[in-house]
């Protein structure tokens, strides 16, 4: 099957998957009880409560409620966020931008560092450099990231005072017009280098913390698949043609070792998103993760559902992208099988 046809087919299926996902999200959230709690206060009379219930269709059956919710979502109305005291649709983009900035930076760290470390390690199999790299990787993959975050915070923020906390120095950033909501990009677009340096400075520590676990996973995968590729006959055949070791690695083994690694990179994206919750709380990063944690504690179902729906849909797209990249790297892949 042609790659283009395959993509079109996948895109056609996508809306149905999203509907399925939304039903699951809605049902799971409702298991936690009625969303009415966040709108109530102690002074309200039962009459007033009933009024609110009627206003939000909470007196109807569940399928009807789902219908109202889904219709709202399609119209861009995700409900009222009790935590932020504003419509979800208004707050969401800002939170999303913060989280995107953090996870893209972490993803960048993880992919470049992970692929590089894995290659470095795999090409030096069983040599001291390999062992050191593997220890770093194993500890990264097994260490809970909130714990690592706290350690880094104690060392670099509390003790040394080198790293800041939060997202930016408020008065520096106040002068920068918000175009994308990504502070680094916005400050660059505005040509404000001081603000850019500040945004980057705030970003580095949480990004490294968040990316570390994923770096470790990617590095381990890269190493093991590179070691496997290096044992293949075609590697010897390339050497027999007169390719220098550097080229054998670069043009032959590394490229093929990347194929299984791409799948892992896709999976680590989910790992990153999960990780944002703890990292954002610890570093006081005002993103989706922190918002969502607050919402769970306060029973803010509208926010919660939006978050879960969003991450699920994101995953569907990431999977599609991984499949396409995979097919591009490996021509043997039979698409649609």
């Amino acid at each position, binding site marked *: 099957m042609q790659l283009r046809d395959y993509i079109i087919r996948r895109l056609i299926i996508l809306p149905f998957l999203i509907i399925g996902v939304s039903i699951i999200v809605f049902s799971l959230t409702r298991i936690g009880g009625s969303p009415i709690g966040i709108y109530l206060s102690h002074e309200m009379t039962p009459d007033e409560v009933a009024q609110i219930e009627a206003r939000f269709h909470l007196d109807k059956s569940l399928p009807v409620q789902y219908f109202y919710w889904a219709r709202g979502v399609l119209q861009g109305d995700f409900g009222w966020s009790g935590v932020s005291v504003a419509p979800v649709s208004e707050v969401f983009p800002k939170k999303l931008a913060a989280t995107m900035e953090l996870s893209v930076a972490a993803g960048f760290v993880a992919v470049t560092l992970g692929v590089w470390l894995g290659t470095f390690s795999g090409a030096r199999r069983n040599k001291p450099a390999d062992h050191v790299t593997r220890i770093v990787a194993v500890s990264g993959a097994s260490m809970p990231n909130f714990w690592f975050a706290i350690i880094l915070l104690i060392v670099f923020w509390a003790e040394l005072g080198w790293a800041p906390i939060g997202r930016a120095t408020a008065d520096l950033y106040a002068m920068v017009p918000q175009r994308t909501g990504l502070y680094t990009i916005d400050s660059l677009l505005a040509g404000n280098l001081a603000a850019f340096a500040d945004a980057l400075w705030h970003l580095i520590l949480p990004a490294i913390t968040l990316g570390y676990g994923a770096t470790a996973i990617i590095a381990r995968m890269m190493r093991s698949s590179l070691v496997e590729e290096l044992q293949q006959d075609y590697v010897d*055949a390339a050497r027999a043609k*007169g390719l220098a070791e550097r080229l054998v690695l670069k043009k032959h083994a590394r490229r093929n070792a990347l194929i299984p690694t791409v799948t892992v990179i896709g999976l680590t994206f989910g790992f990153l998103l999960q990780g944002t919750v703890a990292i954002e709380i610890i570093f006081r990063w005002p993103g989706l993760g922190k918002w969502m944690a607050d919402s769970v504690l306060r029973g803010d179902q509208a926010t919660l559902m939006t978050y879960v729906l969003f991450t699920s849909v994101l995953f569907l797209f990431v999977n599609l992208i991984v499949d396409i990249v995979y097919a591009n790297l490996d021509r043997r892949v039979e698409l649609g099988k």
Partner: protein
Amino acid sequence: MMGHLETDMADAVRTAPATVASVRDLKVHFAAKRGVVHAVDGVSFDIRDGETLGLVGETGCGKSVTGRSFLRLLPVPPGILAGGSVTFRPHALCEDCDGAGCDACGCTGRKAVVCPSCRGQGCATCDGTGAETIDLLKIDTETLRKLRGDRVAMIFQDPGKALNPTLTIGQQVAEVFLQHRTDELIELAGLSPETGGALRRFARQDHRFGDGILLSLPPFRGQRRRIQAALDKMVARALAETQVPNPASLMDRYPHELSGGMRQRVMIAQALACNPDLLIADEPTTALDVTVEARILELIRDLQMRRRSSVLYISHDLSLVRRICDRVAVMYAGRVVEIGPTAEVFRNPRHPYTRGLLAAVPTADTPRGGLAAIKGTVPELVDPPAACRFAGRCRHETEACRRFDPTLEPVSETHAVACFIDHPAPEGDQPSFERITE
């Protein structure tokens, strides 16, 4: 005066023994948990100019390890180059006949390169041959890299595995030219020989950061296209030599889209692309059907005859070796036990192991590749004792065979054997073909 000297030098090279490569007392061991495996343990033989030398023996006897030593393609560790040498005498196009074949080069069209240290007079470095002699086990990796694929090439057993699954056939064959024929490529593209920078790097498969952008801009873009076109032309020519139908369309295909025979043709095209002096063929047809095998053999034979390359043909199929090899070396448990002209070895085998092999071979219904008609199994190669390796399986063995280690000694001018039947044992009972101990 000078010219006279040069003629003398050339004469010295001409009369030198025409040996393209010599293996002397080669020892390759492997560190394993059970001890040191003596996979190759004192192997010696010569490969002569233009000949096909067959290397036969049971599985695990060290054929592949010997063959790979020529290109130093051994995993080290666990491999250990424990001693010996593999010397190689590179050749160059005969300038008298420009490759057509004349008396000066013995009709081969190529001549040994003159030894740089004695200028052809004969010295210790060249073993008195006056031809440049390179120890493939000792030279630095860059010199070795330049020889690999250019002067010494290799074909592997399984063409399905020896081709990179994610690169096209064209990309893979092109690499040989990019590594060894950069100048020709630039010339064929009609560019000046002084062409340097990113363009030369492109013609050398040496990509540097930023080259991609630079070469996509005019005027480099057009020049890069010309180099690419020249490269495609060279690749198509190399593929056409192996009689593949429609070589140009083959170039864009991936290995998994081809049949086994086709893939092996691609491997052959790749190996012979630079006209090597020596081709190591490690069971190139074992993974193929019998019908395809015949055609591939014919092809190798044909290309070799035309180019006068020497071939080390590794196989465990005696009938096949008999068909295509000029001489044959029989290996057993890390040793060469018998070597000689194919006709002579087959007519008058002197080693009990060779006899066993020959007795097992010719019938049409014995399984292909199976040599195991000799009773017993190959001994463990871990720290072998000083004894004949074949003792324990040999019908003629005596006490002497278990106490002493026979060395390869001549039985005629061309034929040598490592067995006490033809050479006196240092002491004790002499084995003989008449005496069968069971």
